[in-house]
């Protein structure tokens, strides 16, 4: 039995503007080490909202969130930032690379923030990640010189740099064409299979979801499957 990484206990969230709408209703589930989970559902079913609560960025909810059996709910902003830095990697629909920096520096940034290893070692580590994703030849380029698919791969490398417990993705292929969607999906698959990386991906792409180990299907703020 593998270890439980993330636990959601009775998570609910309401929007109050202009009228009170319950967007998430009593959601509970676990994610285990090595799981490749996709969250699917129609637009507005609350799947992204759930992801941002699980990512610790959204703190306005009811219920409890545990990461590695440690209660995260109610922690201070600074501690949450530390948890995100150390334990969670993000890939968004948009790449969010910093145009002022090179690809290598973009990848290194979260690790520099964590400040556990010296810069030379980090550089080596970042190059390794880029190599796994097949984009090590782009390391010295500025982020705005890359194509859309390349940018998303750099974003994945950035998510991997601190060896996170879990990678969270919010529609990571939403902005990509079929070819690049395939590449990104293969990367996720490879991470899951070869490195036993835990992944939690929100998507509305059914064919993407169908290839994952576990599908969480949501409708109207509830998990239906």
């Amino acid at each position: 039995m593998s270890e439980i990484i993330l636990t959601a206990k009775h998570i609910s969230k309401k929007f109050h503007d202009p009228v009170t709408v319950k967007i998430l209703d009593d959601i509970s589930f676990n994610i285990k080490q090595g799981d490749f989970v996709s969250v699917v559902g129609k637009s507005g079913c609350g799947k992204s909202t759930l992801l941002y609560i699980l990512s610790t960025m959204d703190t306005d909810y009811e219920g409890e969130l545990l990461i590695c059996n440690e209660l995260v709910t109610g922690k201070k902003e600074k501690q949450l930032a530390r948890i995100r830095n150390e334990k969670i990697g993000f890939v968004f629909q948009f790449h969010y690379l910093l145009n002022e920096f090179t690809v290598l520096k973009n990848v290194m940034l979260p690790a520099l923030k964590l400040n556990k290893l010296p810069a030379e070692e980090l550089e080596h580590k970042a190059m390794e990640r880029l190599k796994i994703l097949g984009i090590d030849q782009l390391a010295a380029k500025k982020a705005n010189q890359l194509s859309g698919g390349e940018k998303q791969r750099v974003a994945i490398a950035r998510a991997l740099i601190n060896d996170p417990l879990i990678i969270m993705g919010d529609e990571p292929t939403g902005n990509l064409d079929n070819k690049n969607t395939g590449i990104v999906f293969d990367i996720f698959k490879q991470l899951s299979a070869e490195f036993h990386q835990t992944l939690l991906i929100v998507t509305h792409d059914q064919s993407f979801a169908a290839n994952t180990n576990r599908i969480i299907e949501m409708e109207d703020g509830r998990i239906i499957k």
Partner: protein
Amino acid sequence: MNLKLIFNIAKSLLLARWKQTLVAAIGVTFGITMFITLLSFMTGLNDLLDGLILNRTPHVRLFNDIKPNKNQPVNLDTNFASSYNFIQSVKSNNSRQEIYNSGAIMQAIENDDRVLGYAPKISAPVFFNDGSIDITGAMNGIDVLAETKLFFFNDYIVAGNAADLKNIANSIVLGVGLAENLLVSIGDVIQVTTAKGQQFSLKVVGFFQSGLLEYDKTQSYTSIGTAQKFLGKANYYITDIQVKLKDVTLAPAVAKEYNLKFQADAEDIQTANSQFETGSAIRNLIAYAVGITLLIVAGFGIYNILNMMIYEKMDTIAILKATGFSGNDVKLIFLVIAVSIGLFGGTLGLLFGFLLSSVIDQIPFNTAALPTITTYPINYNPMFYFIGVGFSFITTYMAGFFPSRKASKIDPVIIIRGK
């Protein structure tokens, strides 16, 4: 806290928009440049104008004022001890103008630690005979060396030589206005009459120009010995002792003390020239107000640019926060940006301020009132430079504070979900 990383990110953000940054920095540079130049020039002028009067005014002046006798007979009558007596019958006829026991007093002043130096002086009203008319004037018998050392007498001599007063017997230095009226030049001999009617011939050895026209039309200087001879007095006769202190702020206290100790009237510089201090203080205040206004305007410039930068860099802030930078880190990044604009602009401002004041220092400025001044006066007080840098630091910090606080409060979820 990983400060190196914070500085690194701040630097990249700054350099990515270097034109904007430069504009903001130029705002600060301009503010500081004008601040430094304005203050240097203003205080330079102030010092000059104050020096015009204050350099030549003793910090404490000892003299004997002509006053009615304090011991009026009615005061001595015990019957009226508790009454207010306004009958004054004894006039001030016999009171002497000289300072009693002047030698001992000068000795005591010499030994006083607070005193920088003293200069004895004799002043007497005289008439300068110019053909059939007499010009009323005043003669000051001075110790040329002490006067030059303490009150910069030499600076005001525009023709001839001050030392000749000492070296040539029966010599006189005339104010330029007076000399013009008498139609004399150096080497001429003039006739001078005392108030008591004795006539003397004195040789003109120099002209002085104080900058105060009225003063230059009536005053003249001779040596103490000549003045004593001229007035028919013995060599202990002195009417004024001018004292210069090491610390001018002590003057009122010292004046009070000397008044009691030496039984002579003592006047301090603050009482004699209070209006000059007020004038300088207000001029300085205006200069500071204008300088600080310039800096505050520069501060608003930085505030605007940072605000814009934060709107532009919303994505950057969001991803920094998503990947583990805390609100504090983000705040620090923008504060570092603001303060480095301030320090860079401020340092350049100091340099330009110094250059601009040096340029003003070279501009010719000739006026009849100020014979020793040839260029505009500048006060290179390091204090202004410290204030300038300190203030540029403070304004840019304040200008950066609110935008960076705003940046720290940006919710990454809103930005990321908004895409």
